[in-house]
């Protein structure tokens, strides 16, 4: 069986290799801080395997995460001058290779889809080939490897250091924002342990007038969106708001249809994800990848849609749940 952990090690190894390149890149004014940040991240990908299996204590990993928070948070990371081709060279190779250039890029999703749909059902000696529940992750990993091989053939590149350098420039342009999604997952679990959801429930129960169905629906949806904006993740907001009003008020007290209330409630949270910089992987990382000067550009493009959709979600629950 091919395990998801193996791919996490591969990702860790890529981070470590890129950190080594950064450490000797004199064009980066903060090369040591950068190398430390990405090197730690790579190391954590390996150490996490033992934490997940409960074979190693999680505390050292926590220390490393806080060290990365400080390196990224106090602007100790930077980026070097990318070693790359000029626009003229790119136009020339694009003209020579034509649309063959798309083949490796499209190989990645194609392999991922094949793994998640077909290979998922393959068995060898009674064991599934891919670890159950991790087919999509493994598919993306295989897709990236196959895509890289195809790309090296298409562009006739023999040196593996070239794609590694190219990928590192992309990584440096994203910077510390890459760590934020994982850190938010941590915050969500700490909020859970601390009982933030129960507290919000007590407050809303006191404030909400009895029997006001549509106000309660609006409070649930807007609350999902607001909590998502704060936490950066609808998954973290959902248990908080559902324990606070979704279940006790809308479903038990007012007899709302659970699938409508809960499914649409989650989607109301997604409206919040569209407009918050805390959802770094959806909003800040694309801005960094697209080299936008205004890192809130994607959020600005999404605000009107998010607002209109929040109203739609409130209407859908009001119309169909009761």
């Amino acid at each position, binding site marked *: 069986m091919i395990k998801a952990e193996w791919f996490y090690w591969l990702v860790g190894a890529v981070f470590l290799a890129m950190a080594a390149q950064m450490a000797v890149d004199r064009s980066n004014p903060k090369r040591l801080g950068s190398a430390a940040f990405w090197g730690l991240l790579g190391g954590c990908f390996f150490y996490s395997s033992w934490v997940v299996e409960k074979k190693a204590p999680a505390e050292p990993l926590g220390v490393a995460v806080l060290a990365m928070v400080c390196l990224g948070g106090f602007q100790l990371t930077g980026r070097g001058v990318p070693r790359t081709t000029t626009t003229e060279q790119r136009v020339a190779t694009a003209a020579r290779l034509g649309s063959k250039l798309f083949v490796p890029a499209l190989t990645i999703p194609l392999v991922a889809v094949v793994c998640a749909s077909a290979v998922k059902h393959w068995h060898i000696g009674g064991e599934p080939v891919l670890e159950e529940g991790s087919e999509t992750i493994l598919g993306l990993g295989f897709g990236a490897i196959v895509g890289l091989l195809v790309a090296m053939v298409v562009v006739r590149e023999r040196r593996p250091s070239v794609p590694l350098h190219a990928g590192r420039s992309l990584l440096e342009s994203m910077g510390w924002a890459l760590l934020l999604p994982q850190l938010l997952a941590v915050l969500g679990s700490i909020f859970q342990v601390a009982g933030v959801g129960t507290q919000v429930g007590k407050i809303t129960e006191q404030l909400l007038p009895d029997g006001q169905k549509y106000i309660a629906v609006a409070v649930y949806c807007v609350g999902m969106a607001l909590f998502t904006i704060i936490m950066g993740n609808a998954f973290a907001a959902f248990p908080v708001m559902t324990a606070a009003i979704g279940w006790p008020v809308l479903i038990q007290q007012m007899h709302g249809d659970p699938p409508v209330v809960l499914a649409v409630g989650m989607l109301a949270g997604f409206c919040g994800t*569209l407009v918050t910089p805390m959802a770094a992987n959806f909003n800040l990382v694309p801005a960094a990848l697209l080299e936008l000067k205004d890192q809130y550009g994607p959020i600005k493009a999404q605000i009107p849609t998010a607002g209109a959709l929040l109203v739609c979600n409130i209407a859908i629950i009001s119309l169909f749940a009761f």
Partner: protein
Amino acid sequence: MIVLLGVLVVILGFATRRNPLLVVGVAGIATGLLAKLSPQEILAAFGDGFASSRSVTIFVITLPVIGLLERNGLQEQARTLIGRLGKLTTGRFLALYLALRQLTAALGLTSIGGPAQSVRPMVAPMAEGAAERRHGPLPERVRERVRSYSASADTVGLFFGEDCFLAIGSILLITGFVNTTYHTHLEPLQLALWAIPTAVCAFLIHGFRLLRLDRSLDHELAALGGRSAAEGSRTAEEAK
């Protein structure tokens, strides 16, 4: 009550535009201390949370492929290709991508797109290429807008497509949380069906806004075109 101060830390940090990494780190530590966790328990919470959320960072594995292809002119080729499709304006192209992204996500194919895999190397250059064909070189501000809308088409399509699919994280989170907490029995299929009305609204609203982008680009660039030609060409130089 006092644990809500952790939420306040996030809001304040956010409002004063501190570095998000520091805000989240401080809020986590503060909430843990207010909930009377020991320092060891807080460190363990950070470690466990990191270890179980590694899958969100795994897309990094695609960066070397994309980087290598970009060195060899992937973005330039994307522009050339869109240049041949005369009728495809920026807005129409992005609306088409939105539809594709929603449909494939609804079939469970969520990793088919994404900012690193598709938006940067292909979607954004194509959207820019379509705008350039119509208006010539784009000023920096307009270029940023087109890129932002490209990212938005991908994100909106993913969010409001994936929930129509049964085996997606958010659907499983809902059934998992509700079934264990409230001892009830919800089927993923019921939830996925009720994600469809919002998905339709999302396509109509965002699709309409993408199509309107064409008109607003026309207006904006016509207004800029009123300036002197020398200034216009200088802006185009700067835009590179």
